[in-house]
């Protein structure tokens, strides 16, 4: 399994993370399915890393 970034989209806290927060976790397929089906979490895209410009 690999860690993925999720956002808490439901009205209740998930794994100790409050609604609106993002977190990284290794969820099993079943955990992910249940949590996403009921609207607890959604996969969050990691913020794009800006490439450093040459000075």
């Amino acid at each position, binding site marked *: 399994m690999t860690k993925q970034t999720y956002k808490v*989209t*439901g*009205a*209740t*806290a*998930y*794994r*100790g993370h409050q609604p609106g927060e993002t977190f990284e976790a290794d969820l099993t397929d*079943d*955990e992910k399915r*249940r*949590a996403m*089906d*009921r*609207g*607890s979490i959604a996969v969050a895209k990691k913020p794009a890393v800006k490439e450093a410009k040459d000075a």
Partner: protein
Amino acid sequence: MPKRVAFKDSVTVDSVDLSNFARSVSFSSEHERVDVSGFNDTGSSEFLAGVTTQSVTVEFYGAYGASETHQTLYPIHQSRDIVDFEWMPDGSAAVGPTNPKLKGNVQILTYNPGATRGDADTYSVEFTAADPAGLAFVTA
């Protein structure tokens, strides 16, 4: 330890914090009484502890929004999934000897929501221990 009024309890099912939707928790752990009595002068019975059956029953408020009571519990029952369960007396404090956490993997074998006209929508759900580790209080 002082006496307490229960109002900060924390109830988590499948990692979802359902504390605000729960209003009572009742844990049961029972060893079967196996009668191993033999003939004796006093007529006393003798028992040994047999297999253990554990469950925890929570009374929930019915709520049907995303990641609320029904949408959390019904899929677990429907899919016969085994999920984590946690209850602790004070959800705002760390786990410890004075704030033990009951935890374990559970199933929802029976799911029976209902409603009564004019009353708060509440129903009880029994979580049955689902693996050999059972439900146990931890302090760390």
